[in-house]
Every structure is written in structure tokens, then in C-alpha cells.
């Protein structure tokens, strides 16, 4: 067993010893079939998409409605048992990694869309409904839900609320927090709160805003009201090649400075381009060191004019090629390589870590150069695929978990990248969340008082600190011996998901 670099909390032996009684209590609260402790079945819940860390929970419960969630949480509160909320388990930061002395509350059965209101342009859904299912449900009338995290075919809207998920289009259309009008949430003590609703700006203190992005530390979301938008009239993508990442970075800055907010503005570097092209043949130029995909949407007249402007800016920065999607098929092909970039890494590397720092745009070129330096220093390859328009980096660190010490080196490399992001005026995470992955780096971005202020908010909702233990806040508690395991090629969780 490798010595874990990130510690999972030491389980409470007294709770583990009471497992039988706790299970009996849960089975008295829910139907027995909705309480899972069979070893084989529990294994499906032992990790999320941060697969290097895993731990079997005490039990998994699958409630059917809000009253059952509240009953489970009241029981856990009475018994002093920890709780780990779980949507689809697609978190890349370990947000849903269980604890050995905790009950996992799986929200998979909250899978109904409750109401679609086209006049007021909103959808009310149970929290286990997938992100994409909301867009699909309103597609027939030409509407969609804007935030589109790469895992959208699997990730749940409740998980999106917990993580304040973004996606390719959040540069123009905002994050989850900008698109959620209201939620129903059950507190760690089992109280049901309704925050916001089918109207704007909930009034009073903004508990809704605080709950969004709280990473499952403050409660379990059971229902979400989102606003939906009318689909743009047209969307076209421009694929631009550059001989240097510096040229591409300068082009990004100038597009934004020219007052253009593209629907998506993505960059891939040389290693990412070549891996993606070999994987899906998207037609990317292979003689370049960087490409940009610029998507413009809106009325045709506007899109045409903006494409002309973007083209001119790209030429000023030495673009070596510039292709404009002629039709929807070609637009989707431009995106296919980008969306396949993460799985493509699986073909050139046994394993990879995906980082998620966010930086000021003007720092793109120097930070990419410094990441290249760090790559040499740590002796590990890196590919960069990211949301350039909002400065949200996704360096993919390539390693092989079967080579002793490589995971440690990959994690050390990743931590160096995130510290670099903070050093240049950025932050540790743009959209994946802190989870367990970046928890111990929080002290690099925040001072002790800043963290204390945040921790008091945690205690407002969860005074006993039972909810999603070991996440977000650096912990001084002793490390568990268990937790991190080798995960190897082919064992990637959710391999079916595109990742961007």
C-alpha cells in the first residue's frame, strides 16, 4: 500500500463498532431494500471520479423522497453518525469519496422532473435528475439549461449545485449559481429548508447563494429550480492554429479585450492536439503548438460579423491556420477532439491527474511556460486542454500508477501548478471543487482567519461537523492508513464520459 499523500479522516472506532445497530436503525427508517451494506454492492460507492482515493462506507441508503432524506438525517444526527451526500459520483476532486464511519446518502432515485414552466422559463427537478436530462426535456420547445459540465450525461443537477459546476459555455452563460433560482435542501439536523423559488433574488440573507458550491458540507439538496434559456439561432466554431502557445494566449486576451464574449473559447496545446487527433481524427492541424476553438452563437448576422473580427485578431497574432465551421457536422467535429482529449490521454498514458486552477487571462502564456518547466523538473509529461476564455486551466499530468512513486510525483507536480495559479493572482479551483484533492492547499490561498470565517459558516449548518467529513477544510486529524489505492489503465471510473 502506498503511503497516502492526502489523508482521509481516521474512522471513529465507536461508530464502526455500532454498525449493526446503526443498520437496524436505518432499516427501521427506510424500507430494508433501500439500505445497502452488502460488501459487493457497497463497493460501487467507494469512490467517485477521483479514483485514486476510495473507502467503503458504513452503509449506503437510497431514499425515495424528501421525507425519507430528512428521516435518515435526523437518525444520523441522533446517533452522531457522519453522512456523505452523493449524486452520480462524477466529482473530479473527491467530493463524494465516502468515509468508513459514514452513511452515504445516494440521490439516484430523485430522478423526476417535476414541472416545466415555459412562460416563466424555469424547470423544477428532483436533485438526482441528470444535467443533460433537463436540457433534453425542454429541447422540443427550443430551450436548454446552460451550464454544461463535461460529465453532463451522468452528473446530477444536485451535484451541480453542490459543486457550482461550470462547463464550456459558462464564459457567456455563467456557472450553476447564475442559473439556479431555488432549492429544497435538508440540513444535517434533518430540517427541510426551501431557499429561493420561481422568482429572482430570494431576499433576506442569501442562503441559496451560500449553499451553491458548498460541496455537500452544508446539507443535501433534494429539489432544484433552474432557469432555462432559448437556444441561440445559430452557433459556429472557428478552429485556429498557432505555432506557439504564446500567440494563442495573446489572441485569447485580445478577443476578450475587443468586447467579444464567445460562447466557448478553448485552447489545446501540442501534446493534447496530437493525442486527440490520433484518437478521433477531428481534423486538427498537427504542425502547430496550440489551437483555439472559438464558438460564437446568436443571430446569424451577429455570428458572421464576430467571426470576421475574431479572424482578424487571430491573424494579427500569427495564426497559421483558421477554419470556420461550414455546417453543424463540422462544428461538432471541431468539438469532438476537444471533448475526447481526456480519454485520448488514456491511450498515451496509463493514468493522468486533471488539475483545475483558474488564473487571470494575461497570465496564460507565462503560466504555460512555467508548467512546461515544472514538467521537466518532475520528470512527468503534461498536456494542456482548457477553458482559455475564462482562464480556467486543466493541465493533465501523465503518470503510471504501477511505477512506484509516480503518483506521489504527479500529485507533487499538481500541487506546484496550483500554487503557481495562486501566485499569479488566481485560485485553486475554477470548477471541479476543492474536495479532498485540494483541501490541503487551502492554506496556500487563504489565511487562518479566512478559513476560520468559512469554517464558522460550516458550523452554522453542521455544528457537529458530521457532513462530508475530510472535504474542503484542511484537517489536523490523524490519517487513515486506508484510502489510496492504485488505479490503473482501464480502471478509470466513468470511462464513457467525455471530459473537458
Amino acid at each position, binding site marked *: 500500500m502506498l503511503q497516502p499523500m492526502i489523508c482521509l479522516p481516521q474512522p471513529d472506532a465507536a461508530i464502526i463498532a455500532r454498525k449493526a445497530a446503526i443498520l437496524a436503525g436505518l432499516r427501521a427508517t427506510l424500507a430494508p431494500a433501500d439500505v445497502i451494506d452488502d460488501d459487493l454492492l457497497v463497493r460501487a460507492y467507494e469512490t467517485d471520479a477521483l479514483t485514486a482515493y476510495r473507502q467503503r462506507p458504513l452503509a449506503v441508503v437510497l431514499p425515495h423522497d424528501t421525507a425519507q432524506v430528512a428521516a435518515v438525517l435526523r437518525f444520523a444526527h441522533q446517533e452522531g453518525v457522519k453522512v456523505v451526500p452523493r449524486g452520480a459520483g462524477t466529482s473530479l476532486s473527491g467530493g463524494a469519496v465516502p468515509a468508513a464511519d459514514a452513511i452515504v446518502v445516494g440521490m439516484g432515485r430523485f430522478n423526476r422532473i417535476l414541472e416545466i414552466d415555459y412562460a416563466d422559463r424555469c424547470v423544477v427537478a428532483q436533485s438526482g435528475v441528470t444535467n443533460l436530462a433537463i436540457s433534453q426535456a425542454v429541447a422540443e420547445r427550443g430551450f436548454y439549461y446552460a451550464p454544461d459540465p463535461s460529465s453532463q450525461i451522468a452528473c446530477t443537477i444536485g451535484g451541480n449545485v453542490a459543486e457550482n459546476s461550470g462547463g464550456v459555455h459558462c464564459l457567456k452563460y455563467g456557472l450553476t449559481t447564475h442559473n439556479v433560482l431555488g432549492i429544497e435542501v435538508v440540513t444535517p439536523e434533518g430540517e427541510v429548508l426551501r431557499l429561493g423559488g420561481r422568482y429572482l433574488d430570494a431576499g433576506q440573507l442569501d442562503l441559496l447563494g451560500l449553499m451553491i458550491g458548498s460541496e455537500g458540507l452544508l446539507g443535501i439538496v433534494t429539489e432544484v429550480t433552474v432557469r432555462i434559456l432559448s437556444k441561440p439561432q445559430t452557433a459556429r466554431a472557428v478552429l485556429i492554429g498557432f505555432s506557439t502557445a504564446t500567440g494563442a494566449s495573446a489572441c485569447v486576451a485580445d478577443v476578450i479585450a475587443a468586447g467579444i464574449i464567445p460562447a466557448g473559447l478553448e485552447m489545446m496545446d501540442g501534446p493534447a492536439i496530437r493525442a486527440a487527433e490520433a484518437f478521433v481524427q477531428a481534423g486538427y492541424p498537427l504542425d502547430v503548438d496550440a489551437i483555439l476553438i472559438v464558438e460564437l452563437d446568436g443571430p446569424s*448576422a451577429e455570428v458572421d*460579423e464576430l467571426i470576421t473580427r475574431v479572424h482578424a485578431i487571430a491573424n494579427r497574432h500569427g495564426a497559421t491556420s483558421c477554419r470556420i465551421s461550414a455546417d453543424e457536422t463540422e462544428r461538432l467535429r471541431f468539438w469532438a477532439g476537444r471533448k475526447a482529449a481526456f480519454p485520448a490521454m488514456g491511450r498515451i498514458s496509463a493514468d493522468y491527474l486533471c488539475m483545475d486552477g483558474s488564473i487571470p487571462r494575461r497570465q496564460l502564456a507565462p503560466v504555460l511556460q512555467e508548467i512546461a518547466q515544472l514538467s521537466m523538473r518532475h520528470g512527468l509529461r503534461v498536456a494542456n486542454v482548457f477553458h482559455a476564455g475564462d482562464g480556467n486551466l486543466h493541465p493533465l499530468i501523465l503518470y503510471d500508477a504501477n511505477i512506484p512513486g509516480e503518483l506521489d510525483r504527479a500529485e507533487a507536480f499538481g500541487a506546484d501548478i496550483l500554487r503557481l495559479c495562486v501566485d499569479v493572482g488566481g485560485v485553486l479551483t475554477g470548477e471541479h471543487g476543492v474536495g479532498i484533492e485540494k483541501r490541503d492547499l487551502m492554506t496556500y490561498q487563504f489565511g487562518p482567519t479566512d478559513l476560520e470565517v468559512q469554517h464558522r459558516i460550516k458550523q452554522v449548518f453542521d455544528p457537529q461537523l458530521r457532513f462530508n467529513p475530510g472535504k474542503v477544510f484542511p484537517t489536523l486529524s490523524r490519517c487513515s492508513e486506508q484510502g489510496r489505492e492504485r488505479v490503473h489503465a482501464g480502471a478509470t471510473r466513468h470511462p464513457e464520459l467525455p471530459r473537458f
Partner: protein
Amino acid sequence: MALCASNEAELVELLRRPGPAFELVAGGTKRGIGRPVEAATLDLSALSGIVDYQPGELVLTARPATALTQIEALLATQRQRLAFEPPLATVSDGAGCQTLGGVMMANSSGSRRVTAGSARDHFIGLRAVNGRGEAFVGGGRVVKNVTGFDLPKALAGSWGTLAVLTEITVRVVPAAEFECTLLFAVGSAGAAVTLCSQALGSMYEVSSAGFVPGRGAALRLEGLATSVRARHTGLLSTLNQAPVAVLDGPDSTAFWQQLGAAAALADFPVIWRLSVPPGQTARILDEIEPEEFHLDWGGGLIWIGARQVDGRHVRGALRGGHATLVKAPLAERRVASVFEPQAPAVAAVAARLKAAFDPDNRLNPGRMN
């Protein structure tokens, strides 16, 4: 005599030791909203000035007492603006200078809020001192950030009851090259809301939608001139209705500034501001029968001018949403619930949040009661 604080260190010094409670004042325009604060005045007007502005990053950092006009003038030099269109002075504001801090503490947004988001949506980073005298930061200076709890959200709209802001970072956006407003004759508030919903749900990117009885329903288009022209044509064919008037450029801007500030209701002693599901607006108006009203946010925002407070009558008409008493005589504000009463479980959490920031109730005590 008012105490002053001109920097973070002075605030820490003042609040770290046990002492009196304070009413926080900078521009002073919002003193007449909320329960009257019975406490010594803490003058924050020296906490002013632009700290950093990076047009290419679409981010601006300023101290809270910086005048909104100063910020907007600076942004205009780079053809940028605040997307949420904060009103310079709403009908409920008193005399004084509208500051960025006042805008954020009131979560004050104008007509474009319905599509571009609210003040709190654009508030991405802060420095502040809480009631314990602790200086802290929250959020950041990059537009995409999920690191830690979203403190700017917690503080936006908190009316100075949690902490004293010392620095505010906001997201800014490119200004539109052109705008126009189409005015349509409609027979009722219900018909106006239907028209607004149809327009906001269309692909023509209507950015604001409202209704002023006597003038009609108003729809606003903004963006590149070529785009606005194309959308204008498309929208009219979708609505199958011709406008009675079209306001271009500055006339359009002025129309929405007036509406966002509710300027037409200035003569009323009592003003309510209701945020509701737009589909319920017509029913709510039927029940309340206000002397005068107008609608913004596609019908989801109702401004009501009245002679009497009559909170039970107004709030009794709501099925979801909230009613805020934004203007009323001092004596009435002492006894009325200015903000929408919360469910007991929600109110309990809000009270604990207040205590986490300001356990001794030293910042704007009672204002949100």
C-alpha cells in the same frame, strides 16, 4: 459626532474590542430602507477609490465608498459596464452619493437583471472586517472560482449586518454598441406579462422587458447594430404585433434607467417592491389593486406605489416570492416587517449566520429584523 474609519486596520481596531454597535454609512442613500438602526454612526466614506482595473480580465476592484458614477465613467472609457445595471438612485433612496458598497449591500440591480444576472451574480471577491474585528478575504479576482464557500453571495444583500466591506471585486462586461426599445400597446398587466414572456423566451435575446401602464409593454434589444436590426425584425414577426414607438440609443437607455429606479412612483409615501413568479403577477395585482404600479424583469418585479403600508394585504397576495417595503415613513418602518418574513427554520439558520459573523450584534443591529 460620527466615528470614521478610513482603512481596514482602523476597522479591526474598532471592532476587535468590546464597544458600541454601529450604523454603517458611506453615501447614505439607503439609510431609509430597512428597520431604522438605533446605533452610533460609523462613517465609511473615506474607504473609497479604485484599487485595480484590468479591462482585459473583465474585472474591477474598488473600495466600497467609491461612487458608482466614478466606476461607470471609468468603465465607459474602455467601453465596458456593469451588466446588472444598478440604478443610480432608486425612488426609495435618500439624498447622497450612490456607492458600489451600497449597491452590493442592497443587492441592487436594474432592468437588465432579468437576463444578465444580479449584483450578487457579478460580485466575485471581497475584503471585509466582521463584527468580531477580523479582517478576511472571500472569493477572488478571477471570473471562474469555486474555491471555498461563496462569501460574496453571503454578503451581497446583507445590508451591512454581517461585515464591513473594505474591497469589492466585480465582474464587468463589454458595453453594447447599440440598443433600442420597442413599445407595444397592451390592454392589461396580464397581456403585458404574456408578451414579455414570449419575447424573453424567444431566440432574439431580449435583454429587458417591462410594463408601464399608460405607455405600454417595453422590450429592449442590445448588441451589435447589425444584430439588433436582425433581432428587431425577427422579434416583430414572432410577436406578430407592431410597436407603437421605438426608442433608440440614449432614449432607450433613459427609459430603462427610469424604470429600474421606479422614478415615476416618487410621489408615493409608501413603495413596495415585489419579486414573484411572472406567471402570478396578474393575479397578484388583481388581489392587491394598487393605486399605481409598474413591472420590470419580464413581469417578475412589481413596483407598487401606495398611501398605506398594509403589509398583510400585500403579502397575503403572494404565493412564493417576496415583498420588500422599500419606502415608508419612519414610524411605520419601526414596526413593519420591511423584509419578507422567513419560514422559522430558514430564519433560524439566518440568525446563526448573523451570529457567526457578528455575535455581539454590532453591525447595523436590527436592520433586517
